[in-house]
């Protein structure tokens, strides 16, 4: 796979100010503010192959969004090099952004008061897309997303899921080679998430490279082939999803609401990790030792439960596992 993105020793440092919460401290802030340097991204390097889908994972405040903003050329790095398709994003910005697309889950390109179709026309003019290409792409993408019915309604009356689908169309109209997605499924329901994932897979099969930041492990499991994990601005993992699974040991987190209190749980490959109350417990299940189906069967033999939910491993736990794995190595 040919390299399409190369990030080399990327650093982003900025200053912020410490502000107190009390009245006295607020008054003091008028005369003196203590400057605090923040290392948002600290010496990150990685490469992305052409046609790949790479997930950048990390807890809140890890530096994922800052990294992706630097990759899109909208933030200037303090130091380090970025090469995307031979472009330096901070130089020749206009030529560079013509080649890329971006969807920021918490920010919108759509114009609030008018229908998405009018916003699409605006991007058609901005990206200088020909009438033929525009019509073809709108037809393909609107069918893929099934948005024909509501792309003529004002954006403000659309649901979050409908708006997000339109955001994707907006970002893909000019047929970018690389698309950056910052939390693309944030706040969406399961069906909308699934539809967006299908869309990403479809576009990827047509040759588009995707870089997505998320703290939703499901996004990564279903889409990404390679993972970069960032914590406190530093890279802690950069490998394939299969190798991440080896590190994590294919564990699932199961939350249980019990019918009766339970002191111990004797099922191989399981462990009670937290007890929220006598009847609420969280269990980790190692799928290398026991499948979820077998676990459910065994569980129903040893206790009664009124509710069960299977969760992904929290990001903090994943990072702890990675640190432990690195120490053991």
């Amino acid at each position: 796979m040919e390299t399409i993105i190369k990030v080399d020793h990327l650093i982003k440092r900025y200053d912020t100010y410490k502000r107190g919460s009390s009245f006295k401290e607020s008054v003091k802030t008028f005369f003196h503010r203590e400057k605090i340097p923040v290392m948002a991204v600290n010496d990150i390097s990685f490469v992305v192959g052409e046609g790949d889908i790479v997930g950048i994972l990390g807890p809140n405040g890890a530096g994922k969004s800052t990294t992706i903003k630097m990759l899109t050329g909208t933030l200037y790095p303090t130091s380090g090099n970025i090469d995307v398709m031979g472009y330096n994003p901070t130089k020749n910005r206009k030529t560079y952004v013509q080649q890329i697309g971006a969807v920021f889950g918490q920010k919108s390109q759509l114009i609030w008061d008018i229908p998405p179709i009018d916003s699409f026309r605006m991007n058609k003019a901005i990206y200088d897309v020909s009438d033929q290409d525009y019509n073809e792409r709108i037809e393909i993408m609107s069918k893929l997303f099934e948005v024909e019915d509501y792309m003529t309604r004002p954006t403000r009356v659309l649901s979050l899921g409908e708006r997000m689908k339109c955001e994707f169309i907006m970002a893909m109209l000019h047929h970018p080679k690389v698309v950056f997605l910052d939390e693309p499924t944030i706040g969406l329901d399961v069906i909308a998430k699934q539809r967006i994932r299908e869309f990403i897979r479809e576009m990827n099969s047509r040759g588009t490279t995707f870089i997505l930041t998320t703290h939703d492990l499901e996004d990564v499991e279903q889409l990404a082939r390679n993972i970069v994990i960032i914590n406190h601005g530093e890279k802690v993992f950069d490998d394939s999803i299969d190798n991440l699974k080896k590190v994590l040991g294919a564990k699932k987190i199961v939350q249980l609401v019990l019918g009766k209190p339970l002191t111990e749980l004797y099922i191989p490959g399981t462990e009670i990790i937290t007890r929220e109350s006598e009847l609420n417990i969280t269990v980790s299940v190692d799928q290398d030792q026991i499948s979820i189906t077998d676990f459910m069967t065994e569980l129903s033999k040893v206790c009664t439960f009124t509710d069960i939910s299977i969760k992904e491993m929290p990001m903090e736990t994943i990072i702890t596992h990675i640190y432990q794995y690195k120490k053991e190595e």
Partner: protein
Amino acid sequence: MKRYLLIYRECIKVAFATASTYRLNFFLNSVIMLLGDILFPLVTILIYGSGAGFEGWTIYEVLLIQSVFTMSMAIADMSFHGIMWATMFAVREGNFEMVLLMPVDTMFLLMAKTFSIDGIGLLFGGIAIFIISLINLTAPTLIMWLQFVAMFVVGMMVMLGISLIMAATSFKWVGNSRIPEIFDSLRSFGKYPQSIFPKTVLIVSSYVLPVAMIGFFPAAALLGRGGYVMFYAILPCVLFMTLGILLYRSMVRLYQGVGG
């Protein structure tokens, strides 16, 4: 160039579509802007009606200056003044990257996207007073008209420079919403005959912060009362706009976004 014209055309279409969505808001905005800015000519009429006035200037000459100022304000509000508030808002909310992601000039795109037709009432108001004033004055010659158009365009450059300088400050001082009020006050010097001001103010308003070009100099050209000072003021106006453009472009680099 063609691409930029197409973008501008789309932005104008969007502005009309938005205005038609909130018809009452558009109507009220237009009326309020008209009433707010038409008060100055009314004050002038009251001053002259009471027997007072600006020495050396007839009521229609003063009204002509103020109508030119009003037209300049209206065109600036409609075409590029929005960049100031749009930049301030985008920097504060951390949405500026959505503009930087577009493969066109950032300044142009923000100006085009903030095209507003709310100022149309003000523009018509200004044109009405301009026509009434001209009817009551000696008809200008062709040379005077040409000088007027040139000065009017240069005046727009000053307005653009002011908007860009104010917008640029928001990259460094986030949430500086009161700075425009200072500039608004200074800009007001441009709607009076400059001869009523002391020499120091005259120098500042003509060459340092050349607000005289917004209303006074174009009107003076039309009245044949501009003199050589008017031409000397062109250079600082061009420099002022250039300063605004350069400052804005360099300040964009300071954009840091907000937490993701």
